[in-house]
């Protein structure tokens, strides 16, 4: 598979993490093509996410369609709604962080 066949969205996730599952549901709702990369529960083992987003929290997504890298599930859900939802906004607006994600460990 060449790089051009790669799904445009890469989704960094933790197995069984409810915040990640929320993002999964949204990606599936909009029928988006994504690849899942699973990381470890230990924050200290998540350097790959830190390099991308500046934080070690998951979920995090990288969307090659828009060049956006983002963490925190509420932000991601808003972003997906605004970018791929029915009433997709053009201003890319994001609401203020509404929750704290991925605090375990």
């Amino acid at each position, binding site marked *: *598979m*060449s790089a051009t066949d790669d799904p445009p969205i890469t989704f*960094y996730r933790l197995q069984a993490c409810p915040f990640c599952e929320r993002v999964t549901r949204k990606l599936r709702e909009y029928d988006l093509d994504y*690849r*899942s*990369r*699973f*990381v*470890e529960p230990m924050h200290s*083992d*998540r*350097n*790959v996410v830190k390099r991308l987003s500046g934080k070690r929290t998951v979920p995090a997504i990288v969307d090659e369609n828009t060049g956006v890298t983002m963490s925190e599930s509420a932000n991601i859900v808003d972003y997906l709604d605004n970018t791929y939802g029915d009433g997709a906004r053009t201003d890319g607006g994001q609401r203020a962080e509404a929750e704290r994600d991925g605090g375990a460990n």
Partner: protein
Amino acid sequence: MVDFEVVSLPDADHVAEGDTAPDFTRPLVTDEYWEDVSLSELTDEGPVLLVFHPMDGAFPATYVWNEIRDRNWGTTTEDGDLTVVGLSISDPYSHKRLIEERGMDYRLFSDPQNGVAEEYGVVHDLDGMAGVSEPRPAVFLLDEDRTVEYAWVAAEWPDFPDYDEVEAAIAER
């Protein structure tokens, strides 16, 4: 030399030299994460040495990866674009630990249900571990079309690849 019993394994109707190796998709574990990857994605990039090994934590897994690491297979310029990749029934978390503990620059496929070994004809039902089967130790050198250029499958238990022979097959490419 200490006299110890090795068990002969029955003949296996396994994938052999000249065959096209079956493609598969499984979680491929790096030192940082895992994601679903197909074998053909790897062969598209160049030849692949596919190493079936006993479950992580068993001493043969440790020995095999120490040896491959110390021989630098796939990491030197002589080996060109060869990719060396492992496969066992261990879960991705165990694979990450093995990669860390061995300090190895190789990725490992995770196949807990042993379906890939079934496709390759190298299933080994483990005596004394009810319901658990894993691959026999086996090594397949594949070209870009997944044609098998070299194959070795354990005929005894335990058994280890003839590393010099594998190295010669790699060098012949």
